[in-house]
């Protein structure tokens, strides 16, 4: 039955596509010279970005055609467009993918525009450096970002708990607080979400031991024992009742609204700092951020570029594309709209301009990054090509431990060996 329907729908789509081509024949003419812009986002980001696009069109009289997708669909869309040689001119890019796209000649080097179309004299040099691949600039950072533990301040205040200075606390301190308060928490609420499946949390763990997820050569950068210790820690948290049972935790498929914090089942949650506003929108209680406790002697966290603006190698009018990028990064009016939704900008004058007008929650992000900035280790090398697959494989690996299906060490070993195999297959 479905076949009939899909065929019928297909006919509909075909018809629509045909009529759309007929219509767009004229539209394409009118849009000649339009700069195509693509980004991944959320409703809030889409609203702000579209407002900036409108502003740009009124100010300059040029046209922009925007496209937006959710993170999960975005990379499929982009890869398909790259395969069809029809990448949009200006592309929101992630640190995970920028090397891959740049080295496969999909992105344009921006160096020739810096100083002319791209006015970056005021921009933080460290942030700019994060967009450099093999000596050339392929992306301009849209803002800085770091990982964090976000916590429900209202609940902790109600219990009279004050957290110690998070720049120096350890996982032991953190667990001790959890054990202290776990019986006083409301029914169905746990001390923290379980972070066993979270690759960035694993990264802070191994960095704290002086290692990293990957070496600069693109090999696994940590040892099997580190992974075993990581799994043991989160299994202990689950067994102690500090994190929810496996089946409750597994209902979180990675969407913010399904997180333990948003569903009122956890006091602590993992979060990237630029997501604080979005998370606060989902929670009635007041929330705040602290640094992730370290499990070893080294600083596990680092400042990372939240996202880049990159230009496609196939962009028809590269100067026009560069102008649009410049508008997003340096125009004061545009940044009055964007604020810090994409991370805290590296442009000093913009930052000074927008800070007083920020909400209390947004101010927390700025303050947090000020603290983090002095207690971080350097940006890790970019992940190798098949890192995305390994990231996804961590979920079933951890869950098989959490559900008690397999022996913890066997699961860790399996994941570790599969990771090596994935990298070899890349």
């Amino acid at each position: 039955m479905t076949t009939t329907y899909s065929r019928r729908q297909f006919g509909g789509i075909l018809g629509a596509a045909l009529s759309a081509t007929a219509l767009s024949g004229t539209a394409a003419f009118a849009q000649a010279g339009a700069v195509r812009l693509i980004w991944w986002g959320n409703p809030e980001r889409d609203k702000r970005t579209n407002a900036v696009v409108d502003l740009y069109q009124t100010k300059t009289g040029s046209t922009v055609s925007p496209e937006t997708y959710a993170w999960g669909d975005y990379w499929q869309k982009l890869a398909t467009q790259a395969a069809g040689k029809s990448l949009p001119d200006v592309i929101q890019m992630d640190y995970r993918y920028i090397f891959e796209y740049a080295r496969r000649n999909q992105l344009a080097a921006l160096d020739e525009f810096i100083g002319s179309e791209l006015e970056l004299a005021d921009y933080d040099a460290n942030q700019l450096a994060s967009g450099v691949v093999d000596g050339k600039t392929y992306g301009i950072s849209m803002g800085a970002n770091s990982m964090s533990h976000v916590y429900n301040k209202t609940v902790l205040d109600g219990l009279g708990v004050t957290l110690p200075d998070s720049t120096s606390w350890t996982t032991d301190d953190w667990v001790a607080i959890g054990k202290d308060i776990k019986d006083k928490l409301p029914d169905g609420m746990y001390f923290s979400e379980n972070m066993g499946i979270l690759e960035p949390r694993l990264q802070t763990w191994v960095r704290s031991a002086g290692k990293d997820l990957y070496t600069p050569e693109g090999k696994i950068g940590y040892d099997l024992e580190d992974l075993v210790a990581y799994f043991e820690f989160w299994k202990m948290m689950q067994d102690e009742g500090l994190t929810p049972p496996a089946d409750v935790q597994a209902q979180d498929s990675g969407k913010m609204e399904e997180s333990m914090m948003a569903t009122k089942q956890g006091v602590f949650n993992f979060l990237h700092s630029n997501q604080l506003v979005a998370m606060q929108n989902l929670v009635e209680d007041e929330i705040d951020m602290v640094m992730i406790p370290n499990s070893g002697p080294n600083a596990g966290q680092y400042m990372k570029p939240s996202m880049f603006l990159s230009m496609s190698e196939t962009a028809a009018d590269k100067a026009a594309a560069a102008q649009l990028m410049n508008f997003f990064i340096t125009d004061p009016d545009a940044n009055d709209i964007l604020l810090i939704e994409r991370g805290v900008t590296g442009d000093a004058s913009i930052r000074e301009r927008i800070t007083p007008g920020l909400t209390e929650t947004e101010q927390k992000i700025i303050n947090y990054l000020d603290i983090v900035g002095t207690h971080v280790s350097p940006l890790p090398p970019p992940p190798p090509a098949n890192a995305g697959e390994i990231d996804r494989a961590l979920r079933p690996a951890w869950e098989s431990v959490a559900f008690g299906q397999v022996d913890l060490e066997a699961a860790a070993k399996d994941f570790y060996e599969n990771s090596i195999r994935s990298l070899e297959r890349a």
Partner: protein
Amino acid sequence: MFLLPWLIGFFGLTLGPTLASLYLSFTDYDLLTSPRWSGLENYEYAFFHDRRLGNALSVTFTYVLWSVPLKLTVALLLAMVLDRSVRGVAFYRATFYLPSLLGASVAIAVLWRQIFGAQGLVNQMLFLLTGMKGPAWVAHPDYALTTLIVLAIWQFGSPMIIFLAGLRQVPQDLYEAASMDGASGWRQFRKITLPLLAPVIFFNLVFQTIEAFKAFTQAYIVSGGQGGPVDSTLFYSLYLYEEAFANFRMGYASALAWLLLVIIAIFTAIAFATSKYWVYYEDEGR
């Protein structure tokens, strides 16, 4: 001439991509760079090295072997009930058909996630009736696939409609004659209904098996696109999709698609080969 629109569609939208995917299945293709010929490498990996593929096959076979017979049984039972009651039959028919229209949609899969969640409807009823607290069914590796099978069975509407049409074709005088000879209801069902309905059952069986092999939407939504927990709902089609669009191995995914085609073809061939032993057509032996 009048076939032209159809032919363009067939060659441009069906045959072309099909042949392209056959070619791609022998290449290494990551979408960003041009495909590179790799011979039988993809097939070799699929047959001898891919452990997740084995799991995906086992999940898919479990799903097909449970959901298809159960769905057909429910469909046949309800069709027989509806075949008897005359009053309001159109209303019931429409009502029972409704889940099939909705079932493949994203909205129902989202709803399913809620119903079988930790705080979902099923657990609330369970708590009211027995006082037990149920697990989060959709998020537990032991039960997640079962909830998807239940979802599939619930969409019994289209085979039911086809059964109903089939039942209407069975001559009533056969039943009358059988009743006069004192045959019980069960005997009538076995000796009259089932044999005469066999072609319809056969059609539904083949059709639903193919559909079940291709199941995608429900698992994609219910598991949040990951086939979890612990790969327990990693359907073949879901794994294929992940390889193609998340891991950017379009060449390997094409090989997987061709293997799926072969598997479905084998199952269909088995169904056809055995059909001569149990499917009777009325015009046979004339």
